[in-house]
């Protein structure tokens, strides 16, 4: 599956986790996938769900319009860090401010990958580990807003991928039962653009990205946890 992606790409892991989750919950007939452009959009050729490819950064708006009309559908907003935190940050903030009923998955690799690995606002590759302003911590940006679920995991190795799976399930369960805004960010390897082999790429994320992007659940069922 997902043969359009580069070897070692985190989207394959993220989408495979979602596929498993959707199958386990018996949701295939209800899922509508709202995808961002670029690498995310490559998934549209292989997914089994009704899907829409949105303009860059507009996934949450398209998903909101859709969700309001078809309340019984499970709308998954799937986007990269450029869409979520750069060009689409206004949409993200307002969706969180309104606590829109949403299940958002953000695949964060710190780069604009499709266009060749240009540096995004989320990039921390060269940052001083002590620099508290490096990267883009969504849990800080959305702190004033009444979101229901916010967590970050890393798609690097078995324990971390297992944790990602649990966070996605918690977010999906919350979205299905209680409504409100649910977001899971997944730190994701991009071996092609970091020019690392998959093993070194995973180590780089674990050793350097997680310094600026702490892992864990930050908000659960609307309650803020330590972060």
């Amino acid at each position, binding site marked *: 599956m997902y043969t359009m992606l580069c070897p070692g790409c985190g989207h394959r892991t993220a989408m495979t986790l979602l596929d498993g989750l959707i199958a386990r919950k018996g949701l*295939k*007939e*209800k*899922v*509508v996938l*709202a995808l961002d452009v670029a690498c995310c*959009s490559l998934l*549209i*050729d292989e*997914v*089994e*769900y*009704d*899907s*829409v*490819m*949105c*303009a860059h950064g*507009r996934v949450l*708006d*398209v*998903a*909101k*319009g*859709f*969700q*309001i*009309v*078809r309340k019984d*559908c*499970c709308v998954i907003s799937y986007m990269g860090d450029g869409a979520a935190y750069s060009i689409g940050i*206004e*949409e993200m903030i*307002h969706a969180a401010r309104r606590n829109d009923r949403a299940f958002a998955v953000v695949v964060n690799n710190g780069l604009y990958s499709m266009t060749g690995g240009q540096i995004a606002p989320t990039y921390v590759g060269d940052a001083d580990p002590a620099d508290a302003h490096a990267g883009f911590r969504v849990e800080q940006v959305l702190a004033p807003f009444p979101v229901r679920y916010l967590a970050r995991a890393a798609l690097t190795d078995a324990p971390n991928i297992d944790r990602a799976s649990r966070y996605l399930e918690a977010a999906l369960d919350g979205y299905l039962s209680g409504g409100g805004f649910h977001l899971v960010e997944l730190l994701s390897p991009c071996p092609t653009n970091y020019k690392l082999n998959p093993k070194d790429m995973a180590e780089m994320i674990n050793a350097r990205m997680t310094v600026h992007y702490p892992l864990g659940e930050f908000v659960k069922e609307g309650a803020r946890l330590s972060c």
Partner: protein
Amino acid sequence: MPKKLINGNEAFAFGALAAGLSFYAGYPITPSTDVYELLERDHEKYGVEFVHASSEISAVNMVMGASIAGARALTVTSGCGFSLMQEGLSYMAADFVPCVILNVMREGAGLGDIPRSQGDYDQMTKGGGNGDYHAVVLACSSLRDCMVMPALAWDLAEKYKNPVIVTYDSDIAHTRENVEILPPKRIDIDRLPYALSGNRGGRPKLVQNVNYHDPDFTQTLSRKYEEIEQHEQRWQAYETEDAEIVLVAYSICACVCRDVVRRARRKGLKVGLIVPVTLYPFPEKAFENLPACRKIIVVELSILRQMRRDVEYATRFRYQYDSVSSLSSCPTVSDILTLTEEVN
């Protein structure tokens, strides 16, 4: 049907409800805001979902989401707000998504100002967003048009799976008349076979415009616009059969020109009028049978005389042409009448 004293924007809002509107997302901007306000106030009464979008960019993308779910979804804007929607429009045209956008034209480029103008003609009819696409553009030239145009707009949008822009200027928007109110209607969101609803077996339904796997995509896209141009040209003609001078105008200019034709005829001047209803596709067929025509006068609120170029092309440059044009000063009946007398 009951009549009510309302303005053009309110007529459009009632017309949209009569066409089955069920979703509205918008951001206020003069002179379009009456539509927003009426729907904000009464949306629950009519079962319409109303969203205060955080920008026109958000609004148009929410409308895209609601449209692909099968709703008759609307956003309404003016001026620079319409510019912000061009990316969404371009996406929906490329994605074969039906939707309706109302652009109440205001004066000038940039922020401009709020008086009447028709300066968005090229932006609406020639593209506006990136790429090879057209939106169907419908112009309202009376308050009755404002009431009936939303239904036509959605019918065309769903027939061709393409965005439709409805437009008029701020004079039509704020003119008050006694208008017959059409009753509101509810529509079924499952009526469109292509609406996304979850994959219940078979191939998933996809809304996308990256179609490198589809060898017929270029043809499919070309055929959409060819069919629109062939079948959907619409116009209103007044006294054109024996007209030696034919006026061409839409929206408030059409209202003025209808009066010009009446007065000219009383003076024995053979003056006629063509009012394009579709600005895209431009109604070239309206000009096919003008046996007595010597001169065409295009009356429009555009210093660049944007519509005149379409008129000249539609008539293959075979007549004499003149323009009455300005940025935002409404032409008077006597100005145009004087011009027609000079021709004679």
